[in-house]
């Protein structure tokens, strides 16, 4: 496998993440895209292609919503595409941007991710009613959290994981988010706060869950030649991977996210990483639920199976620890406008690797890994960034 050409990231932008923002989806997209362009000191006229990442139409409440959003993302008059892998879309959209540039077809690509979950009444959960197989599952009237609780329980039981160790993830991420200006749910909390929070679907409790949010994020991708014109400090996309497992999730063992492992192996191979825990300086695994961060660390081969909770309890994954995990504050702290939350992680990698993350800065950041997850506990998307 020889990759045709290297792809750089030269700009990033983000909005504030909130339960509801006044802006339309287009306007949110614009805010993020414009900030990304400004940060790269680039004009829209220099953008040759646009990728839009956004989760199901049923949130924004617009059929073919990427068509409606496109002018805000700078798509007017340009090749514009919406790749979609459910919750994995946020980290997948820069992968789609990557192939636009790596293929040689375009020199620049503006990648925007937008989510407006607030239009759905009475609660964004209502839009999840339609993600199920209408024959096997929908008649049971499921709630989305059911299936994650099933996965969490399987994971906890198999490795005998104490809930206290899982709760540490919420404490860490909400704490990290105190330094993120976009953050919706930054807070200084304790393990006891998590353990005493209301049980939603056992074993998932209130503070194990990230909130529904509105928000947008953006990245500017370009070829090496273009990157050199704009910056001395490009960040490189050196590895991409994605994998989708079977729809028949009740026929799979939920204890290990094989789909993340497959995606990670693909990305690491491309990035020539053979010892991930040593070669990765920090990671932003997808953390819509506390246990998911741990599950995904194992899927990303950054922890041995069943060992991520212990590593977390030992403080290894703190921002100043040996392997910082979610230095941004993650979805649990910054918020979860689904696709935008995934791209927020990639923005974080960009800022970390440029040494621009301010109070969130991780020491000696050389290689960062971002990952998202979605569909019916099914898809893994992984991107490796290097300075």
């Amino acid at each position, binding site marked *: 496998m020889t990759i045709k050409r290297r792809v750089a990231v030269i700009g990033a932008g983000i909005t504030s993440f909130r339960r509801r923002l006044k802006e339309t989806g287009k306007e949110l997209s614009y805010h993020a895209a414009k900030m990304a362009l400004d940060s790269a000191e680039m004009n829209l006229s220099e953008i040759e292609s646009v990728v839009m990442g956004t989760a199901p139409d049923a949130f924004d409440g617009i*059929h073919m919503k990427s*068509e409606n959003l496109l002018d805000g993302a700078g798509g007017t008059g340009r090749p514009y595409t919406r*790749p979609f892998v459910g919750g994995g879309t946020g980290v997948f959209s820069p992968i*789609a941007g990557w192939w636009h540039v790596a293929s040689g077809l375009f020199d620049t690509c503006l990648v925007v991710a937008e989510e407006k979950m607030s239009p759905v009444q009475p609660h964004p959960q209502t839009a999840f009613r339609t993600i199920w197989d209408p024959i096997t599952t929908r008649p049971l009237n499921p709630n989305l959290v059911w299936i994650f609780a099933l996965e969490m329980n399987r994971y906890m039981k198999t490795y005998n994981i104490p809930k206290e160790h899982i709760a540490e993830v919420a404490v860490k991420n909400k704490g990290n988010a105190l330094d993120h200006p976009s953050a919706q749910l930054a807070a200084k909390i304790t393990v006891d706060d998590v353990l005493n929070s209301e049980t939603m679907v056992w074993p998932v409790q209130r503070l194990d869950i990230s909130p529904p949010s509105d928000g947008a994020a953006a990245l500017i991708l370009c070829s090496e030649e273009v990157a050199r014109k704009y910056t001395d400090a490009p960040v490189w996309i050196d590895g*991409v991977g994605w994998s989708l497992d079977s729809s028949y999730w009740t026929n799979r063992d939920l204890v290990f996210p094989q789909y993340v492992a497959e995606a990670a192996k693909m990305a690491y191979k491309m990035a020539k990483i053979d010892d991930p825990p040593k070669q990765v300086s920090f990671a932003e695994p997808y953390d819509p639920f506390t246990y998911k961060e741990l599950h995904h660390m194992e899927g990303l081969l950054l922890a041995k199976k069943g060992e991520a909770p212990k590593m977390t309890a030992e403080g290894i994954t703190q921002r100043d620890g040996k392997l910082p995990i979610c230095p941004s504050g993650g979805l649990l702290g910054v918020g979860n406008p689904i696709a935008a939350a995934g791209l927020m992680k990639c923005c974080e990698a960009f800022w970390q690797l440029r040494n621009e993350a301010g109070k969130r800065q991780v020491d000696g950041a050389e290689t960062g890994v971002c990952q998202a997850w979605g569909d019916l506990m099914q898809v893994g998307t992984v991107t490796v960034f290097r300075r």
Partner: protein
Amino acid sequence: MTVAIVGIGHTDFRSTTPDVSFKEQMFEAAMKAYQDAGVNPRKDIGSFITAAEDYWEGYSIFDEFIPDQLGAVLRSVCTISGDGIQALVTGAMQVETGLFDIVAVEAHSKASDMLSFTGIVNHALDPVYNRSMNANPFFIAGLEMRKYLSETKNTREQCAQVVTKNKMNALDNPLAAYPGVMSVDEVMKSKMISDPLSMRDVSPLADGAIVFVLASEKKAKELSNYPIWLKGMSWISETPWLESRDWSDALYARKTAQKAFKMAGITNPQKQLDLVEVDDWFSYKELQHLEAMGVCEKGEAGKLLEQGKFNRDGDLPVNVSGGRLGAGNLLEASSLQSVLECVLQLRGHAGKRQVKDARTAVAQSWRGVPTATGSMVVLGSEK
């Protein structure tokens, strides 16, 4: 670009398919395509791409339901929430990066699963500015058709002739769902939807699935005796704001053609192209698209159509497959139906409707109301 289509698979297109689920439909098309290409999806194919939109399917996060029936479990799979040609060019780009040698691209329509098609289209309109009127969302096509006909002096009769031609062409397409012998009068007198757009000016919905196998140059030559090369490709979205539209010009088709033709070295489309499959979601769209693509001057398409130039035996056959009007409106899959026709013609496998010596063909698409998004690929039997 050095990417070729080396395998094709498809179901028939039908107005309804109560006997199979969308998964079983996709499975049939995929099985045929892999057989045609001589590949095993569990071993040989690197990436799988589906074009689908949630509300067409009736599932949120439809992406969940695609890997199994394509042989794609635990492989690189994604959905393009867009037009079939956008999925096709995504596959081509992925091959071009060097990441994959072989990629599968799928699009399908299970339109008959929708009980409220018009209501679903209405849900695509901007919720702030365009949903307050209680009118069939095809009013947008009505507005555009009037302005287009008024500016170009093409006529409603000529639009009706597009319908009769495409339904007639579909008679020789065994896959087509809506072949027919329909007179201009029968089109003209059909019920008005949004004047001047009548019922027969609108393509009827159909079900079906199409799968292509794409390969890099090296693999294509190994796998296929008749690889069909992607010589030019382009996709453009124009403003989604109806309020900023020109209403007569299909700007997206103009720009995609300029780009795709340049890539493929086409300077004189009428001469260099052997057949064209253009989007005909609405009858007038065929004329509008042909003009925008530069196949003829603005205002000329109606006249050339009357002269028979776009007939199967004319100078430049247009929608030999029957297009959406004759083969059926397969939603996001219709553009792959156009590509399928081009591939069959370029392989010389189009049977009774074979265009003689077909070497270069174009498939052009539009995503329908309310979008201004279009795509195009130029295909050739020679690299």
